[in-house]
């Protein structure tokens, strides 16, 4: 492996961590940096605050990978969405209470079955895209609640660690919601252990945490 390349939302960006009050670049305290230190390789953190899994897929599909990259993706929350129009992206999220587009989306379009289908569609397409380029890739889910083991067509395995479980064991970031610095460091250590030492993927039962 020559480079660690990561994708995700604020939980990969390191939102509200100590070093970056303007939030204009990913935090050096976010889990990708800690994982890169353990792996002794440079890191390219391509995460973005507030994005959904459709935009994460869009970024992966348009990224120029090198053959010796290792790609780690911490997939985001399933209740988000976005509308892409050439170079602009309209984000849809449940926290955007005053945004007309978000309000209409949750009133008329969103439901759990469809959301699960679409998110697994994005995640599986990313998997096939990377697999067909022979790019090593490891997928992470923020929460166990996002996992649906009943989908027979799903080809994706997630590493057996959920950031939401780590987050609750340590103090939060400055906003009181996002994972704090210790959570990010611990999450990276567990990723390293679960993937590089134990090859431990989630099959319905958690090990460790």
């Amino acid at each position, binding site marked *: 492996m020559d480079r660690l390349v990561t994708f995700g939302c604020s939980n990969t960006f390191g939102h509200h961590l100590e070093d970056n009050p303007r939030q204009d670049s990913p935090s050096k305290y976010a889990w990708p940096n800690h994982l890169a230190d353990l792996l002794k390789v440079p890191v390219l953190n391509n995460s973005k605050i507030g994005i959904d899994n459709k935009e994460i897929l869009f970024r992966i*599909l348009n990224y120029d990978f090198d053959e010796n990259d290792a790609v780690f993706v911490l997939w985001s929350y399933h209740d988000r969405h976005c509308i892409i129009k050439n170079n602009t992206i309209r984000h849809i999220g449940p926290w955007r209470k005053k945004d007309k587009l978000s309000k209409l*989306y949750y009133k008329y379009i969103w439901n759990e079955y*469809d959301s699960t289908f679409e998110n697994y569609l994005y995640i599986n*397409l990313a998997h*096939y895209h990377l697999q*067909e380029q022979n790019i090593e890739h490891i997928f992470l889910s923020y929460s166990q609640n996002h996992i649906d083991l009943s989908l027979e067509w799903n*080809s994706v395995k997630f590493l057996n660690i959920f950031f939401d479980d780590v987050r609750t064991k340590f103090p939060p970031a400055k906003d009181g919601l996002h994972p704090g610095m210790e959570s990010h460091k611990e999450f990276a250590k567990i990723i390293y252990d679960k993937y590089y030492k134990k090859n431990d993927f989630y099959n319905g039962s958690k090990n460790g945490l």
Partner: protein
Amino acid sequence: MVAKMDYNRLIAFGCSFTYGQYLPDDTFFLKPDAKSKKGLVKSIQKKPSKYAWPNILGEKLNIPVVINESHCGQSNKAILHDILNYKFDKNDIVFILWSNYDRHDVFTAKDHQWNINLYMSNVRSKVYFKYMHNKFNTTLENYFYFNLAHSYLKEKNIKHEFLLYHDRFLADFKWNKIKFLDVFFSRVNAPLPKAYDDLHPGVEAHKQFGNLIYQKYKNSEYYTGDIK
């Protein structure tokens, strides 16, 4: 050239253009003299038409079983959903005529969906097309569906060929892995008599389209021309 046809089943997916909507065995005449008058005929939709292109193609390929899994009004998201949930056999060959971009589906369960269509007057369709639809986003999402279907079938070692109704649905994404057979149903359909609703392709169009798919498939001819 395809040397040998040893498939047991031809499975076709698509919308009304694959179903054969308003062909003679899918049409109920509301008035005895109503032939070819729009609004005076009704689509029966009990089973796909025997005149539809999958049957023509199955005969040409000498495949004993043709299963037409198309549904009228279906979006490409729904076609993908059907493919992902279908039980394929190893000797199946799959032909998919992908649908138009003016429709969408929202699934509420494995067997239930809300139809969203540019020409429907329900609130959900109005909201979707006013606030959530643009050409780039729709094309992008449809190419997600095409590419996932392709990778999924490829991983299962199921032979598959993709078709488009119109070349205006083509797009040039650098990550796209799909090749479409070099035949577009709209071009075949344009000069020929229509079905009984005066809109859908008629019997002769289906016949010619089935024959052309066979030729293009046999010669491995894929579209390599301009993308609009």
